[in-house]
């Protein structure tokens, strides 16, 4: 038995050591910078909280993440529903449609959107050609562009858990509800929706958490007009060498993510909604 334990410890030790050295210790060292500022232990957090600019950045991050989550869930619904009903070739085609973007780098996808959303780009010319607008619309370097790009990147994360929940719904329950005289709307609201709700909320939580920390897409599609918390953290390091502020911002971002994750884990059967297959 003792030998078994030693063997197990030897199996686990290399990766644990690796993660301690490359992940845990660097994070701890970074966060310690937030509390060792000359101004005092919590001075950096005071700077973040009192500045009008930083407060606006944090608000913007939340608003964009919330909007992206709502749009993503709305768009994910028909795809997940179709996936749960389709069979054979059409199912495979739709599934690959969802998985293909997953395979492609976020940077490449964001770059594609830059080409498409440009002032002189194909989307603006199409809209003008159709007479939807006279002037080219500002689709790039603002929150609109950021949201389009983020929804595109995050959609598969919402579709998969929602599809998993829809595929698990026992069709006989719907038949029973139908047979007992419930209308379509009643069956949806009282049988179908409650059954897929865990998948919906699991996916939404996932999307919201990922949105909060998004960096590449807002940095390229939003630019200086739509700064998010992650862009602020990066600029503290690269433009201002303000390590203690970067550390404080990072700690705030991580704590918010962890707190939301803890709440979600308590409220939702996440293991059923997100990872079940």
């Amino acid at each position, binding site marked *: 038995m003792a030998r078994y334990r030693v063997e197990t410890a030897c199996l686990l030790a*290399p*990766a644990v050591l690796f993660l301690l050295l490359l*992940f845990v210790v*660097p*994070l701890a060292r970074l966060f310690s910078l937030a509390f060792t500022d000359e101004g005092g232990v919590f001075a950096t957090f005071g700077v973040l909280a009192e500045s009008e600019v930083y407060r606006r950045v944090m608000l913007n991050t939340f608003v964009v993440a919330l909007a992206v989550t709502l749009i993503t869930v709305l768009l994910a619904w028909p795809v997940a529903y179709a996936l749960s009903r389709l069979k054979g070739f059409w199912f495979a085609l739709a599934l690959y449609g969802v998985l293909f973007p997953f395979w492609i780098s976020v940077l490449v996808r964001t770059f594609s959107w830059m080409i498409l959303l440009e002032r002189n780009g*194909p989307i603006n010319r199409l809209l003008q050609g159709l007479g939807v607008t006279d002037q080219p619309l500002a689709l790039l370097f603002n929150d609109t562009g950021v949201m389009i790009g983020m929804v595109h990147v995050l959609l598969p994360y919402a579709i998969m858990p929602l599809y998993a929940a829809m595929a698990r719904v026992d069709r006989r329950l719907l*038949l029973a509800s139908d047979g007992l005289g419930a209308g379509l709307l009643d069956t949806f609201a009282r049988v179908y929706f409650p059954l897929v709700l865990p998948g919906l909320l699991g996916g939404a939580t996932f999307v919201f958490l990922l949105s909060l920390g998004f960096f590449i897409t807002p940095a390229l599609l939003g630019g200086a007009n739509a700064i998010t918390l992650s862009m602020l953290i990066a600029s503290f390091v690269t433009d201002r060498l303000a390590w203690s502020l970067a550390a404080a911002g990072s700690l705030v971002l991580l704590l918010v993510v*962890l707190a939301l994750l803890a709440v979600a884990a308590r409220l939702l059967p996440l293991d059923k909604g997100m990872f079940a297959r």
Partner: protein
Amino acid sequence: MTRQPLWLSILAHGGAGLVLAFLVLPIVAVLPASVNKASFIFLPPRAYSTRWYGEFFLDSEWRSALSTSLQVALIATVVALVLGTVSAIGLRRIRGRWHSLLTGLFLAPMIVPVIVTAVAVYRSALDVGLAGTVLGLGLSHAMLALPFVVINVGIALRTVDDNWLRAAAGLGAGPWTVFRTVTLPNITPGLVGGAVFSFITSFDEVVVAVFMAGYANKTLPVKIWESIRLEYTPVVAVAAVLMILLAMLLFGGAQALGRGQSILKKSEQPQA
């Protein structure tokens, strides 16, 4: 089977088709952009040419970025695959509190926002002189890829029955022989999946790389990232097309391999 009115079916499938088009079509936009003859990006191109592909492979900066990316991804894949496989096997041998604690640690790089990880790793890499090196990039990407290997191999390990391991050990095989002859053949699909995920995770990674790359060792995504903000010529689209091709090649190959293997297993079954 279930009563589903026609209008609902049309609405759902039509909506799904539109959303799927929104998911897939924009990615394809870089393809026409990359064969644009003009020196600026314009869609659809007025004249076609492959000159920017030539420019990409003649430019030493793009070439060295591609080669740096491949080296970094190779280091990351090997390190993550070895560490991840060994710890997935270890994780299966423990239960209870330690199991959840260590699983949490192994998956943590996936949960912490990557900008936070990037800044933290960059700061420590500066202090130990690993910033701006291929090794530093490879190791930090291995850390980001580790969760994917632990998950993939962990799932594959479920197919390995503990009794087989005991039987092999009872027949006198040492731990290494047991691993090589019983565990390894059964977890190969998980290993392939983990390796592909690791390679792509590293090859596509931008955020950590932007901080860590420094001047001399830019990876392909870092070079793209910088070029988007500076020159914005179709050569960036060429680089993007190459990244798409590599990802499709690796994932497609892994899928074909997985399918080939399951066919192999099925054809083997009657004999057993």
